[in-house]
């Protein structure tokens, strides 16, 4: 079964004279374990597509099914809940709650899920170890570098054991070393945890590391390459 399956997914904006087909009848299937990059120039509909995949926006037509559940039919509250339990997010910036430590930030998701303390503690420590920040668990975001913050974001994204992780330009604000480091971690986690990673990116380093590259243009998929 596919983790993500969209059929004829469309988003049309009717802002004036001419309706804009941001996403135009896209059929997309993503499987478990994928390490996939979505690329495309601005206006390609990449953003809109991934917003819908992430349950942040609703389609005007078509369906989007994640692990058997149809997102297009969900109301806002259901979507929020779904995101909590099934989707992990790594944004370009502003990932973390500024007043919480790395440990607390990672734990936050699990608290929202009401998981018991023992489970939370164990998983948080283990994840932060995976991303190489065991010695920084009590530091607040203001005390961490950009790269370190993104690593915590990854730990946080995975803490909830999501079906997949959506990473939006995660390396955009990082220097080379941090960027590579981050990618390595995510690749490793992808292999070890088996979690699907979907990137939206312009960063060539990310594209090169991806095993599948999907290119969008004018709201449609124009290229779908498997590599590596």
């Amino acid at each position, binding site marked *: 079964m596919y983790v993500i399956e969209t059929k004829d997914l469309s988003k049309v904006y009717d802002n004036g004279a001419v309706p804009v087909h941001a996403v135009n009848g896209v059929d997309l299937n993503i499987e478990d374990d994928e390490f996939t990059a979505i690329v495309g120039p601005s206006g390609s509909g990449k953003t809109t597509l*991934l917003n819908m995949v992430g349950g942040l*926006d609703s389609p005007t037509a078509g369906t989007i099914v994640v692990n058997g559940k149809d997102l297009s039919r969900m109301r*806002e509250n259901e979507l*929020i809940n779904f*995101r909590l339990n099934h989707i*992990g997010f790594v*944004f370009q910036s502003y990932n973390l709650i500024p007043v*919480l430590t790395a440990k607390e930030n990672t734990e936050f998701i699990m608290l929202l899920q009401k998981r018991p303390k023992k489970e939370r503690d164990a998983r948080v420590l283990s994840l932060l170890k995976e991303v190489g920040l065991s010695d920084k668990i009590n530091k607040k975001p203001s005390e961490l570098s950009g790269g370190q913050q993104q690593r915590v974001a990854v730990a*946080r994204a995975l803490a909830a054991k999501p079906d997949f992780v*959506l990473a939006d330009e995660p390396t955009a604000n990082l220097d080379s070393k941090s960027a590579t480091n981050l990618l390595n971690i995510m690749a490793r986690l992808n292999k070890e945890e088996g979690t699907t990673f979907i990137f939206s990116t312009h960063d060539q380093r990310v594209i090169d590391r991806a095993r599948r590259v999907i290119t969008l243009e004018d709201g449609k998929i124009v290229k779908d390459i498997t590599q590596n």
Partner: protein
Amino acid sequence: MLIKISWRNIWRHKLRSAVVITAIALGLWAGVFIMGFYFGIIEQKINDVVRSEVSHIQIHHPDYKKEDFNINYFIPDGLTISEDLSVDTLVQYTSGRVISMGMIGSAKANSGVRIIGIDPEVEALLTGIDNKVIEGAFFKGVKRNAILVGQKLATKLNIKVRSKVVLTFQHINGEITAAAFRVAGIFKTLNTTYDESNVYVNNKEFRKLVGENITYHEIAILLKEHEYVDTAAEKYKGLYPGLLVEDWLEIVPLMRYMTDMMDQVMLIFMLIIMLALMFGIVNTMLMAVLERTRELGMLMAIGMNKFRLFNMILLETLILAMVGGLIGLILGYITIEYYAVKGIDVGIFSAAYESVGFSTKVFPQLEARYYIQTALQVVILSIFASLYPGRKALKLKPVEAIRKI
């Protein structure tokens, strides 16, 4: 966890939060202290009224008051009743009085007075009037027709101890009578108006002048415990169905009104203060929400639902208000307790206060329930204040709040 986040969020802008907290603390401190001030005044007044003026229970002829204190309406069997009451189990002290409206005249002036004939020993026990004598003696030093005059009246009539005065009043048979009295002592109560309009003479002597068959016009009773009032009133109403038996609240309903009215006034007063505070709180929380749109959007994206988000805003508002509120209440408590012992001197307004029987030294006091009430009001205030900023937070769409994917 939300509490932890909310608490820390407040301190992201230390100065801004401190300003709001200080405002709330000051507002509540002032409010609470003023409540204590006025309740202190009233409490004192009530104690004084019961102890020195009205006692717990009074008994009259049923038509005495209706007939405007006509001396004809004295209590039948008044002497017997007074005796019985003095040995009643509930009664601490009781005193009977012969009362007549009249005029007092000195060489210099006249004035209208209420002439109260008392049994000095017994009356002193009941109202402590002997302690209020500031010049001369309480019915000592003058052999016959002694009279006790209030300081304000004495000044008005330009008389002093051992001065001679003439009392003019109506005998029970209708004739106007006058008699000479000599000032044995001058008294001063908390109420200058009272001092100006009441004089004390000896019961037995007064009866000879105003009507031998008069028993008492008024029997006043001080109970052993304040709490006995209702029981005692019922008991005596039952024992003397033909008489007018009243408890102090019935005699001076003003006292209850004062307390009730003060409750209401204070409520409005605190409400106004809270409303004034609300503007500042709303403004601050609004800013706190609007400057964090990206963060809030992110929270919604990763799965924090609207209910929790609103709760976070609400908690921030609440904590802000409660910190300020707590400080304010504690400050209020400390100052009230301090002045409850030391007293606040409002002597510059002495003429006004004394004319209506308020002491010029105020001892603030506030029952615990008012602190609790105020704290609750702060909680409700916070909830209301958080509504608008909370709404703003909820209206955010995570998509617009964060950079698009």
